[in-house]
C-alpha cells in the first residue's frame, strides 16, 4: 500500500508534466521540446525563491506557475511563430524548440552552476499522517493535490469554457476557427502559456519530492513524458493523466519486486507492451487531424 501511494505521488508529477506536453500537441499539432527545460528551470528557480529569498513553498508554487506561463509565451514567440506557414513547420519547430530549451539550460548553468541544488533543511513542513500503517507526509499530499487540481482545472477549461472551445476549434480546423472570428495566434500563445505553466509546476513539485534540482532532470522527464503521451494517445489529456500515474506505479513496483537497476526496463517495457496492443494509445483517436 505504501508503494502504491509512492507510485501515485511520483506519477501525478509525471502526469502533470505530460498533460502540458500533450496539450500543445493536441491543439497545435506541434511537439514542444523546450517543455523539459521549463520544468528544469522552474525547479532551480523554485529552490532559489525558497532558499535565497525565504519564500515559503506555498508561494513558490504560484510564482513558478506564472514564470512558466511567461516562458511558454517566449517559446511560442521565438521557436514557433516565426515558422508558421512553412511547409516543414513540424520538423523546424521540433529543432528550434530544442534550441530554445538548450538556451534556457545554458542560462541556468551560468546562474546556478553545474551542481545539484537543494532546499534548506527547514523548508518543508514536518507534518505527517499515519493511516492504517501507511505514512503520508503533508508535502506528498500537497504534491498530489496540486497536480490533480491543476489537471482537473485544465480539463474543465478545455471542455467547458469559451477559451477551451477556441482551443478545440483551433485543434480541429484552424482555418474554420479563423473564419469564425477566433484569434488563432492568441489562442495558440495562450495554449503555450498554459502548457508551460503546468510543466513549471511539475518541475517545482518534483524538486520538492526529491529535495533537489539537477541539470539532467529535464532529460529524464522528457523521455518519460514522451512515452506517457504516446501511450496515453497523442493529444489526449485523459491519456496523459492516466499514463503518467501508471508510469509512476510501474516504476515503484519495478524497484520493489525486480530491483532498482531494472526500473526503466520494466516501466518502459510495460509502455511498449501497451502500444503493441493499442497502437493509437489508450485514449488516442484513430483518426488524425483533418486537413
Amino acid at each position, binding site marked *: 500500500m505504501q508503494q502504491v501511494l509512492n507510485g501515485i505521488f511520483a506519477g501525478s508529477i509525471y502526469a502533470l508534466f505530460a498533460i502540458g506536453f500533450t496539450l500543445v500537441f493536441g491543439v497545435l499539432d506541434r511537439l514542444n521540446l523546450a517543455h523539459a527545460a521549463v520544468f528544469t528551470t522552474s525547479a532551480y528557480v523554485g529552490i532559489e525563491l525558497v532558499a535565497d529569498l525565504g519564500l515559503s513553498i506555498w508561494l513558490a508554487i504560484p510564482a513558478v506557475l506564472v514564470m512558466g506561463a511567461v516562458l511558454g509565451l517566449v517559446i511560442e514567440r521565438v521557436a514557433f511563430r516565426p515558422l508558421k506557414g512553412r511547409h516543414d513547420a513540424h520538423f523546424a519547430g521540433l529543432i528550434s524548440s530544442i534550441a530554445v530549451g538548450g538556451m534556457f539550460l545554458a542560462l541556468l548553468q551560468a546562474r546556478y552552476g553545474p551542481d545539484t541544488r537543494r532546499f534548506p533543511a527547514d523548508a518543508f513542513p514536518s507534518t505527517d499522517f499515519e493511516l492504517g500503517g501507511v505514512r503520508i507526509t503533508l508535502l506528498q499530499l500537497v504534491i498530489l493535490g496540486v497536480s490533480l487540481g491543476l489537471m482537473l482545472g485544465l480539463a474543465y477549461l478545455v471542455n467547458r469554457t469559451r477559451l477551451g472551445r477556441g482551443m478545440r476549434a483551433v485543434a480541429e480546423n484552424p482555418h474554420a476557427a479563423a473564419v469564425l*472570428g477566433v484569434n488563432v495566434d492568441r489562442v495558440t500563445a495562450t495554449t503555450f502559456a498554459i502548457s508551460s505553466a503546468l510543466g513549471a509546476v511539475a518541475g517545482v513539485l518534483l524538486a520538492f519530492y526529491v529535495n533537489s534540482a539537477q541539470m539532467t532532470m529535464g532529460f529524464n522527464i522528457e523521455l518519460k513524458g514522451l512515452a506517457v503521451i504516446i501511450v496515453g494517445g497523442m493529444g489526449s489529456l485523459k491519456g496523459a493523466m492516466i499514463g503518467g500515474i501508471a508510469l509512476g506505479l510501474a516504476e515503484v513496483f519495478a524497484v520493489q519486486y525486480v530491483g532498482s537497476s531494472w526500473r526503466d526496463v520494466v516501466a518502459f517495457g510495460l509502455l511498449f507492451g501497451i502500444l503493441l496492443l493499442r497502437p493509437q494509445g489508450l485514449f488516442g483517436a484513430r483518426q488524425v487531424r483533418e486537413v
Partner: protein
Amino acid sequence: MSDPLLSVQGLCVSYGRVQAVRDVSFEAAQGSLVALVGANGAGKTSVLNAVAGLLRPRQGKVVFDGTDVTRWPAHRLVDAGLVQVPEGREVLATMTIQENLQLGGWHRRSTADASIDEMYERFPVLAERRDLPAGALSGGEQQMLAIARALVAQPRLLLLDEPSMGLAPRVVDEVFRVIEEIRQSGTTVVLVEQNARRALRAADVGYVLETGSLAHSGPGHELLTDERVIAAYLGID
C-alpha cells in the same frame, strides 16, 4: 444615395507568380444581395477570402462601412460584422452543434445565447440534435449549421461561398429560401456561386468573373437575359 456597405476597389490576388484575381472592383449596397458568379477557377473564392481577411491581396482596397479594412485579420472583421460562411461549410465535426453555434458567437459574449436560441427556433433540426457532434449531420444540415453559426455573430455583411455545393436540388431550394430570409431581415449578402442562374435570379446585382477579371455586371435579372452571359455561363434550357 448612401455609401455602399462594402466597396472593393482594384483588388488583385496572387498565389506566388500566379495571378488569380486581376483588378476586380465591386460594391454591395446596404441591404442588397450581390452575386459573384463565374466558372470554376475564375477567382470567386479568392475575392471572397481577400475580403474576409483570410488572404492578403497584392493590391487594391476593401472598404467596409466607410473604413478601410484591407489589412485587417479575419477575427477583427468578424468582430466588426463582416462574417463569412466558407466554402465546404467547415463545421467543426468533432464538436457539438451547440459548441459550433457558441463559437459563432465568439465576439458576442453577452448576446450569443439569445442568438443561439433564435437559431434553434429557425432551424428546428439543429435544436433536436444540439448535443450531437456536427459531423453527424447530413451535408444540407451542415450547411444550415454553417449559416446559423455565422448568423450568431450578428453580421451586417454575410459572405456566402458556394452554399449550394454538393447538395440535392431540394436542399438547394431550402438554402436559397434561407438566404432570401437573411436578406429580408436587412443583412447585406454577397453570394458566390457556381449555380449562376440560381444566384442571379436571387440577386439584386450580379458580377460575372472570368479568369480573374470582371467580365460583366448589372442587375441580376438583366444578366440572366444577357446574350453574352447566357452563351458563356448559363447555357440553354
